[in-house]
């Protein structure tokens, strides 16, 4: 059985708990064992905290990586932001002895050491490569037969030079994962356009972020998709929170919630009460 340290992050547990809950239930059904990564913190957020201080970002990320290393487990995240942050930090520290030594000087203050061995995975990658589409199809009891928009976000596949998962200009992984539930992914213009929230733009210039989201929503609506399916709680929050102002009402689901629906979870358990755009199945 595949076994991972479950990195919660901030937005899923503290804004969309249904995303956390459905991940736990779905993983159990698919034979992925999630071990609590007790005492973890924010990844820390790559667009804001890393932009304020790389040194702080790397040290705090190293602490999270060291917590998983102590358990001897790879990390799985359900958020592109956490994935971007922890993957980048691990990539840097696991391959650069000098940087690792610098970070360990900071970690020594709390009697901790990171040896540089933790691997970081995104949930979608684990589903696609380790579980496989066929096994997911077999676990579906309640097909999600809707037209949907697959939303990759930015930090799952990019920067592709270090992530090396799929060509971000020609990606199919998420569509295959979504369509395993019976849904149909509708082709649309600019499928890889950023949601607008990253890099501190949501907090810094919310109107600019909204302009990105608006173009995405127009393209999604024109494609006749009835749901937005994301793999990042931050994109999720951006789409869910700004639609009302922009005059749209397309329900937003994280991939884990779509799997939760397809594998028989109840609407209550999926935490839709936390969503701004109503989700009526």
């Amino acid at each position, binding site marked *: 059985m595949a076994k991972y340290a479950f990195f919660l992050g901030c937005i899923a547990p*503290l804004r969309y*708990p249904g995303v956390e809950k459905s991940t736990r239930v779905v993983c159990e059904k698919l034979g992925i064992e999630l071990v609590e990564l007790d*005492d973890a913190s924010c990844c820390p*957020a790559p667009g804001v*905290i*890393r932009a304020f201080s*790389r040194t702080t970002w790397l040290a705090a990320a190293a*602490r999270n990586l060291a917590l998983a290393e102590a358990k001897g487990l790879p990390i799985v995240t359900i958020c592109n932001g956490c994935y971007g942050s922890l993957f980048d930090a691990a990539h840097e520290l696991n391959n650069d002895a000098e940087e690792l030594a610098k970070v360990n000087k900071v970690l020594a203050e709390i009697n901790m050491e990171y040896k540089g061995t933790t691997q970081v995975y995104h949930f979608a990658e684990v589903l696609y490569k380790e579980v496989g589409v066929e096994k997911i199809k077999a676990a579906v009891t309640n097909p999600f037969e809707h037209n949907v928009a697959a939303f990759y976000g930015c930090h799952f596949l990019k*920067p592709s030079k270090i992530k090396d998962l799929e060509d971000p200009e020609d990606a199919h992984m998420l569509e295959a994962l979504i369509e395993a539930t019976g849904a149909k992914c509708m082709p649309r213009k600019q499928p890889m356009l950023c949601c607008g929230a990253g890099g501190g733009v949501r907090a810094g210039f919310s109107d600019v972020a909204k302009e990105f989201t608006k173009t995405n929503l127009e393209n999604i609506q024109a494609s006749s998709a009835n749901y937005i399916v994301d793999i990042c709680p931050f994109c999720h929050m951006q789409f869910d929170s700004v639609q009302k102002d922009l005059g749209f009402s397309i329900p937003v689901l994280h991939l884990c919630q779509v799997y939760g629906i397809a594998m028989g979870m109840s609407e209550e358990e999926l935490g839709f009460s936390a969503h701004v755009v109503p989700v009526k199945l």
Partner: protein
Amino acid sequence: MSVIRKANTGPVVSSVFIYDDLDECLQVILTEIKANPEFEAQLAKMGGADVKMCFQCGTCTADCPSGRRTSYRVRKLMRMAQLGLKDEIVDCEELWECTTCYTCVERCPRQVPIVDIVIALRNIAVAEGHMLANHKPTATNLYTIGHAVTVTDKVKEQRKAIGLPEIPPTVLMNSNAMADLTKILKATGFDKIVE
């Protein structure tokens, strides 16, 4: 510094001065805009050394979804960094309009790590006190509770209702772990950014 030559002969206007002829103007540009070795070293130390690889083709700006919606111009920022125009960079709002979507990085024919350079430039700006007021709450949240967002009563209820513990098992549940994180934040100078 933008330079406009009004006619084939006659006065030449830069953003600040008017010159008698183009030669004099170019002389001023060559002598007044000096290389800034301190800034170059600072940027390199923070992971931005490869800015010198940029040959100003503009693929980044053409592809930038933020540039399509704002006055942020990636190519211009890279050139400003090459020229060592630190004061202009740290003070410009556009530095914070990049969403770090990596489209420019994916398509750059010189493989310039543009997002790393933007992050390095932002670090330099923040170290000099140029931080957006709207970003302070996120920094404060990390410093005080170890997460980017606060814990609300509403989310506690929602968590409980779906069978999750009210508080997730992170630093929020363990004051010793939070104390460890605070030590790390202080050791790396984050406390000064928050205050």
